[in-house]
């Protein structure tokens, strides 16, 4: 399969501290990769490098055939990001938020409106579209966040602990949306601490520790328990 993300000897340092240490990763198009690891293992740093919000100290990173950071704008048009923060304006309505981001992604107005309506419907927020985002529950915020991330129909979805603060039903609803995004052919890379959820959703698991990959394997045949045992073994 074609690699959509290729990192070679990717390093990121903050002063004398290594956040990522010569990381080699290749992710094929259409994979759902769970990015696991203890706090400080480099998961969020890796995601920030993929988004272009941070620059690597060494190594190379190619996303969708585009080289980072030189061709970062081409990459940005291909990625959607969901983090534990909603990245939405709470004094705007859901529709106004999506219109704003549609303008930033240069979606033509008529196409943007159709896309916004379809996404609001898909995430179950069509009836609350004109409500201010500050009146939303945490679960609704994350669903709207998914809609924002999918607005420009990206090929790659990057998620940084998207289940943080969600209750059980909110998490399940988010899982359904993530499965749907993956079923549409998107490559999904999700950093999480929830091993059971990682085993259930992903097709591949990548465990980082001390800034480098210590385990990388398909998730097929894994359940939460087995993954937890593997995780404990490789992260010490």
């Amino acid at each position, binding site marked *: 399969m074609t690699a959509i993300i290729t990192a070679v000897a990717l390093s990121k340092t903050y002063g004398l501290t290594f956040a990522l240490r010569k990381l080699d990763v290749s992710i094929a198009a259409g994979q759902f990769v769970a990015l696991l690891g203890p706090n400080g293992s480099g998961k969020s740093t890796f995601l920030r490098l993929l988004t272009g919000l941070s620059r690597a100290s060494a190594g190379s990173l190619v996303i969708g055939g585009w080289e980072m950071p030189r061709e970062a704008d081409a990459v940005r048009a291909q990625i959607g*990001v969901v983090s534990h*923060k909603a990245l939405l304006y709470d004094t705007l309505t859901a529709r106004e938020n999506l219109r704003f981001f549609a303008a*930033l992604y240069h979606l033509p107005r008529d196409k943007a409106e159709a896309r916004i309506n379809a996404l609001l419907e898909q995430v179950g927020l069509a009836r609350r579209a004109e409500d201010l985002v500050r009146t939303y529950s945490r679960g609704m915020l994350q669903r709207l966040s998914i809609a924002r991330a999918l607005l420009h129909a990206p090929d790659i979805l990057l998620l940084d602990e998207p289940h943080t603060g969600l209750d059980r039903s909110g998490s399940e609803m988010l899982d359904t949306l993530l499965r749907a995004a993956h079923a549409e052919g998107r490559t999904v890379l999700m950093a999480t601490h929830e091993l059971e959820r990682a085993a259930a959703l992903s097709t591949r698991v990548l465990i980082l520790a001390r800034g480098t990959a210590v385990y990388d394997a398909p998730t097929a045949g894994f359940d939460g328990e087995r993954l937890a045992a593997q995780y404990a073994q490789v992260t010490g």
Partner: protein
Amino acid sequence: MKTPFFQVVLAIVRKDLQAELRSRELVSSMLMFALLSVLVFSFALELDRLARQEAISGVLWVTVIFASVLGLNRSLAAERDAGNLDAMLLAPVERAAVFFGKLLGNFIFALTVGLLLLPLMAVLYNAPLLQGWLLLILFLGTLGFSTCGTLLAAMTVQTRTRESLLPIVLLPVALPVLLAAVNASTAILRAAPLNDWVTWPQILAAVDLIYMVLCYLLFSFVIEE
């Protein structure tokens, strides 16, 4: 691949105005500070009428500038705390377009406060503040201050002491703007001949232009890791 520059600028300005019209958090706090400041100065200078007349342009600019600092801090802090600055930077947009979008929003808010302040001060200080030249100086001065203020607020907003740090780094940088604006305003209020002070608006416009070019070039270094 990139979203056109002016589309990004307009989207950000529209979003900032829409949010402010709804919440009225930013302008109302700036305006409240400005009103209190003007009133305090008015009472403090009550006994000396001459000093009061001489101090009008100083009072106006000190008030506008500190109200602007308040607005700049809150405007950028709101973006940073909610992660929305990152959300904008995740889009295929020129970093400078994000800067000009935020700058225009901050400028409109600061100018609104300045424009509302003028009639109030005209009454309180019994001075002819509503005149074309003074409006031009207010426009240019606020623009220059908002330009360097937006860049420096984007820097200081990443620190824990942002509220106190912004005025400390901003006021020395904005000194040429302040100097030119106060000198021009004082001359206008004294009804001095145009030839005596016309260089000040010219200096102000030149400083504005220099700041804009510098901020355009520096903004991406300020916001990216």
